[in-house]
């Protein structure tokens, strides 16, 4: 196993190098250029490294699991004399540890750059550096969780295109889960539905916090580093949204962790094949479509003509997306059934809002 780990690290060196460069561009460059100090324009640069790190931990499991995405690779790697699950877990851990080391290096260098710039500045103002340390631990904790969530999603697919597709679909579901239904109730009942009623710009800035609290937390820690109160980082119900999403996120992370380390490795005959491995997975694109449509209906409810036009456009779009997923316009019977149910649901939702 030791020899294999060495080989795998050598094989991933180019990927690690690119990741290192991206982290550097995201943190070291702005840390050297942006204004640091006691001014209105002062920046901690946590947002850029936070987002880059979050994206990296979402994408890297695709490299870790790519031995299953090609028949030839599966034949070679899955016959290797390792204990059950050892190949998958070792590849995932090599990837995670690699990213964490790169992130730590860049983070320390970036913070040191900011520190020395402040040290050499004429002002005696210093950031609250203890929150840089807190932000670091927060980010690596949620980076790790996000890594295992992405790994467990990607492990349900048998080729890289399907893996990317599944990651997009599941992340859409995670993003829209609360916002779509609460926005919809708000649209038809004309009432304020509390903390999850976000539309438009608010939706795009806050909904991602549901799947990556690490990203949203950057705003919070930035505020603390600059010497503001924690209350200044959140507005209104954002506190509740943040803590709710945090809990769900931790549960998802824990479930993913156990799934990856305890579940049996799928049989190699699926490796490299197209389409969903089981019926439950083929339900996900429909769910994503239903949530997206409901959310869209909610934000455009005042314009019924656009609403109906969108209904038909989305219906065609969903069919095309499914055809892509199955690599054929002739969909399986079960997919047609799901398709019919989702069309009916969206039709009724559109009808309700347009009548209103």
């Amino acid at each position: 196993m030791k020899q294999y780990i060495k080989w795998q690290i050598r094989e991933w060196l180019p990927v690690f190098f690119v990741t290192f460069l991206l982290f550097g561009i995201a943190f070291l460059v702005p840390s050297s250029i942006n204004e640091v100090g006691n001014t209105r324009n002062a920046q901690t640069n946590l947002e850029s490294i936070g987002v880059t790190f979050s994206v990296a931990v979402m994408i890297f499991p695709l490299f870790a699991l790519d031995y299953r995405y090609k028949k030839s690779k599966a034949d070679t790697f899955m016959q290797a004399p390792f204990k059950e699950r050892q190949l998958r877990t070792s590849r995932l851990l090599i990837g995670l540890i690699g990213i964490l080391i790169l992130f730590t290096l860049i983070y320390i260098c970036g913070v040191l750059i900011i520190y020395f710039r402040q040290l050499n500045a004429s002002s005696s103002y210093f950031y609250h550096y203890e929150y840089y340390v807190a932000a670091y631990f927060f980010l690596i904790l949620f980076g790790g969780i996000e890594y295992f969530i992405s790994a467990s999603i990607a492990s349900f697919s048998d080729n890289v295109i399907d893996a990317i597709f599944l990651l997009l679909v599941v992340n859409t579901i995670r993003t829209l889960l609360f916002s779509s239904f609460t926005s919809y109730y708000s649209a038809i009942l004309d009432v304020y539905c509390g903390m999850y009623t976000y539309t438009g710009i608010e939706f795009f800035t806050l909904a991602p916090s549901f799947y990556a609290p690490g990203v949203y937390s950057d705003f919070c820690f930035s505020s603390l580093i600059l010497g503001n109160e924690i209350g200044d980082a959140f507005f209104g119900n954002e506190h509740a949204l943040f803590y709710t999403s945090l809990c769900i996120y931790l549960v998802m992370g824990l479930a993913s962790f156990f799934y990856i380390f305890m579940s049996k490795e799928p049989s190699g005959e699926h490796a490299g094949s197209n389409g969903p491995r089981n019926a439950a997975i083929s339900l996900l694109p429909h769910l994503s479509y239903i949530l997206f449509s409901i959310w869209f209906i909610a934000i455009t409810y005042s314009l019924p003509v656009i609403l109906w036009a969108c209904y038909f456009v989305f219906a065609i779009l969903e069919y095309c997306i499914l055809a892509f997923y199955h690599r054929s316009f002739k969909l399986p019977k079960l997919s047609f059934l799901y398709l019919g149910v989702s069309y009916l649901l969206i039709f009724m939702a559109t009808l309700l809002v347009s009548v209103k």
Partner: protein
Amino acid sequence: MIELLNVCKHFEKVDAIQHLSLTFEKGITGLVGHNGAGKSTLLRLIAGVCHLDEGNIVVDGKENDSKESKQKVFFLPDDPYLPMFAKLEDAVQLYSSFYPLDQEKFYSYIKDFHLPEREKISTYSKGMKRQLFLALSFSIDASYYLLDEAFDGIDPFMLEKIKEEILKEREKGKTIIISSHNISSLEKIVDRFVILVNGKLARNGEMETLSKDFRKVQFMCKREISLEALCALSLHPLSLKKIGSLYHLVISSNELEEAKKRIHAVYSPSLLEEVSIDSEEMIRLEMLAAREEQR
């Protein structure tokens, strides 16, 4: 010894392997069957790449997907993986990270096979790649070698050389299973054949045993004779071919004498004699007979 006990594997609507019980002993076994017969699936099951739906595969008394078993088995798939832009040393590094690999032996094979050492493997021809992987296989210290379509794309001159190397491995007491749909390529090196038809074991045995199953008769006759006409004589011919006015009839061994008598009586051929069947045709006939039986 590799033992298969009631092994089953299904792919959605296809029964790839059906209730297969079989033992692979030391020596060389030719695994033959038509396309889609289940040869590659069987090898992938033994190597632990695919999971069994039913049954058991045991390698020297241990489950085939255990670490101990996997250390003893090396599977060479029909399309093995190599990293992009890989050279020979990259291939060696990858495979030696999984198995104990004798690099000296590997490079001596590479010289024997006249493979370019410094070029990227992606520039090799199909046959050259196959030679490279066979060189890798026999440099790995395993007890069981599963070679899927081992001789694909290899020229006849090199094939003889490779067969010699395989025979040397047999002398060392290794178990080698070679799957192929090209029966002639297995001639002279295999000790026994396993014939798969539609995922079922059709025949299994040494060549001498198999060759006793069928007989070939050639006879010369001016009249037109069809397979149906012979069936009408209460015979069960497996095949009938006409070359000029000479007929070649294949029939099961126990019907041979009866067939000779009836053909003589009905058609009065100017020539009627038994001829030998070569091993390639014998295997083909066994496959044909097994298919007929399954129907």
